[in-house]
């Protein structure tokens, strides 16, 4: 009851805001459309330019990553995305008339990308990150549409999504939207320079970093702050905070270091793994150096603004039995890990990530570290790192309690200090994609 009441108040407030932003939007769109008519002349090369820009922006948004089945035809959909709402099967967005979006016009596309509504008015689920794409300008959206329409049409029907109860109950989706969906193009911060604003536009908008890097509530909505870290819905990975210096906040990183990580997938102190490796491989490595730099500038400023958060868990090992556990972990480390990560966890820059003083290893959530040990992995192949070295999986060699011992060891050696891990944590970290 209380909950419903809350919703009704919230929606009334939102309605006002919505009305206002609609007007604003209309004004804005009119302005941008005016700009469009200038661009949209019958000259073919202008269309081609728009398509080239669109191809680039489509990379930034990684539309192909989600809208292509494993080993399937590009943009023809059919990829299965597991989320806590259920399994979504992405639609075909090639210009096929019958099975794709060939019959769509610019307006329909804008409605999808900006407002999260399909051509027939059906509300779309936020598994499609329109919650972020809404920040994209009309001009950029048109370019993406022009590019998509220039692709070869692929006739491919995809099976329907399997959305769980209660999320398959459509009114829930509209309630959700009223509560959590803020429609609106990115508004530049006048106090910041152009580069910063470009970075913010890309990170908050097309880059859809927030789609993973934020805590989601039960309804799958971002909770409050942006980019503060969270477990990715339905995928068993933790996307660290991009603001906190305890996680992946970039306050103390150099712009160059960040840019290197985002374009090559590996830097001296960090490596992109799991879903992040995929984002770097499919999307970020293709960005221009200017855009990557802009993103890095913005990310660094986010980190610098959040240096005051405190580490909740200062952990110290005192009792004898704990020391014994760490000793056992150390033996496993020597046997299985040291050859690559080094006797003091120093790693080899650009090849084997360091484990000492590595924030990914000592984050509160041990999930990613456990997953790395269970599944191993390779950083993505990128132009800057075309022949990466890999980490072997240990799931078939070590028992859960041994994984717990070695992870506890690396979290508490060489100056690292973080909570111990149990075999139960290890069991929970199994499963999921990637």
């Amino acid at each position, binding site marked *: 009851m209380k909950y419903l009441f809350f919703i009704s108040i919230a929606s009334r407030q939102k309605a006002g805001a919505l009305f206002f932003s609609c007007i604003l939007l209309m004004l804005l769109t009119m302005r941008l459309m005016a700009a469009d008519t200038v661009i949209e002349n019958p000259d073919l090369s202008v269309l081609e330019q728009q398509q080239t820009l669109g191809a680039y922006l489509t990379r930034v948004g990684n539309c192909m990553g989600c809208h292509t*089945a*494993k*080993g399937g035809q590009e943009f023809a959909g059919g990829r299965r995305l597991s989320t806590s709402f259920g399994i979504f099967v992405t639609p075909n967005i090639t210009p096929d008339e019958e099975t794709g979006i060939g019959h769509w016009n610019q307006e329909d596309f804008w409605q999808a990308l900006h407002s999260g509504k399909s051509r027939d008015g059906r509300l779309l689920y936020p598994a499609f990150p329109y919650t972020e794409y809404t920040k994209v300008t009309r001009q950029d959206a048109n370019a993406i549409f022009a590019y998509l329409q220039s692709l070869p049409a692929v006739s491919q029907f995809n099976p329907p999504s399997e959305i769980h109860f209660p999320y398959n109950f459509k009114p829930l989706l509209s309630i959700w939207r009223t509560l959590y969906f803020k429609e609106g193009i990115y508004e530049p911060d006048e106090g910041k320079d152009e580069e910063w604003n470009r970075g913010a536009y890309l990170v908050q908008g097309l880059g859809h970093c927030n789609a993973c890097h934020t805590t989601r509530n039960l309804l799958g909505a971002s909770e409050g702050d942006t980019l503060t870290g969270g477990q990715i819905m339905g995928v068993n990975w933790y996307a660290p905070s991009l603001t906190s210096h305890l996680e992946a906040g970039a306050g103390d990183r150099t712009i160059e270091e960040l840019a290197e990580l985002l374009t090559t*997938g590996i830097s001296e102190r960090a490596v992109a793994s799991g879903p992040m*490796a*995929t984002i*770097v*491989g499919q999307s970020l490595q293709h960005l221009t150096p200017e855009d990557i730099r802009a993103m890095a500038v913005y990310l660094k400023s986010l980190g610098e603004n959040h240096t005051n958060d405190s580490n909740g868990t200062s952990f110290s090992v005192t009792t004898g039995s704990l020391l014994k556990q760490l000793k056992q972990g150390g033996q496993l480390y020597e046997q299985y890990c040291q050859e*690559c990560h080094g006797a003091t966890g120093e790693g*080899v*820059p650009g*090849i*084997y990530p360091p484990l000492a003083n590595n924030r990914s290893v000592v984050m509160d959530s041990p999930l990613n570290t456990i997953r790395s040990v269970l*599944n*191993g*992995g*390779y*950083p*993505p*192949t990128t132009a800057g790192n*075309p*022949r*990466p*070295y*890999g*980490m*072997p*999986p240990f*799931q*078939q*060699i070590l028992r859960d309690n041994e994984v717990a011992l070695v992870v506890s060891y690396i979290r508490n050696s060489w100056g690292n200090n973080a909570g111990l891990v149990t075999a139960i944590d290890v069991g929970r970290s199994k499963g999921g994609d*990637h």
Partner: protein
Amino acid sequence: MNHFILILIGFLVATPIANATETDSVTVPNTMAERVKACTICHGDEDRAGRDAYYPRIAGKPQGYLFNQLLNFRDGRRYYQPMAILLENMSDEYLLEIAHYFSSLKLPYPPPEHINLQPEEIKLAEQLVFSGDPERELPACSACHGDNLMGVEPFIPGLLGLSRVYIAAQLGSWRNGGVMRGQTPDCMSEIAKQLASDETNAITKWLAVQPASGNPNPVTALAPELAHRCHSIVQENGAAK
């Protein structure tokens, strides 16, 4: 096919340069062997008795075959989750280089397994392996896998030096058309479906007890009409992109 050859040429041209320029100051050897440690933890070069017999040997198999399999695992046409995770973000070029590396590895074959076969099982197996069954239009295994069963370059793997468990699992998943292998029907799934279970059983045992020796046969060893039956040979390197 063109795609495959293009990548191959690119690879041949690129590799020596890459090797010449990269020198790491630290002690990590700049070699493929070091890069594929994540693979050799399972596909090790030790004799398989000490390990889980299910991990197939990949050293020395034809390059095109290995490349096809790597693409299949990465793109979900052949299913084995631990490998899919490792290959997920690898480019075609790198997969080809990995295939090249393993195919050029010449490691001694493990000794054959010790399994008791009844004389009639041996007879049945040899009949099917070397002559097939013309009545069912079932070609001999050796017609495609080479007279010595050591495979045919570049797409057909040898059948010796594999464990019984592994061969049985492959034939089983082809027959059942499951998610494990061969999502799309292909020559091997047609063949596996035609074999009765006692036949599969006899062939599997028989193959596992043969000593492996010799090399894959040159591509000319394969009759074109047989090659045409197989998607994985005719189709552009199996990469269906």
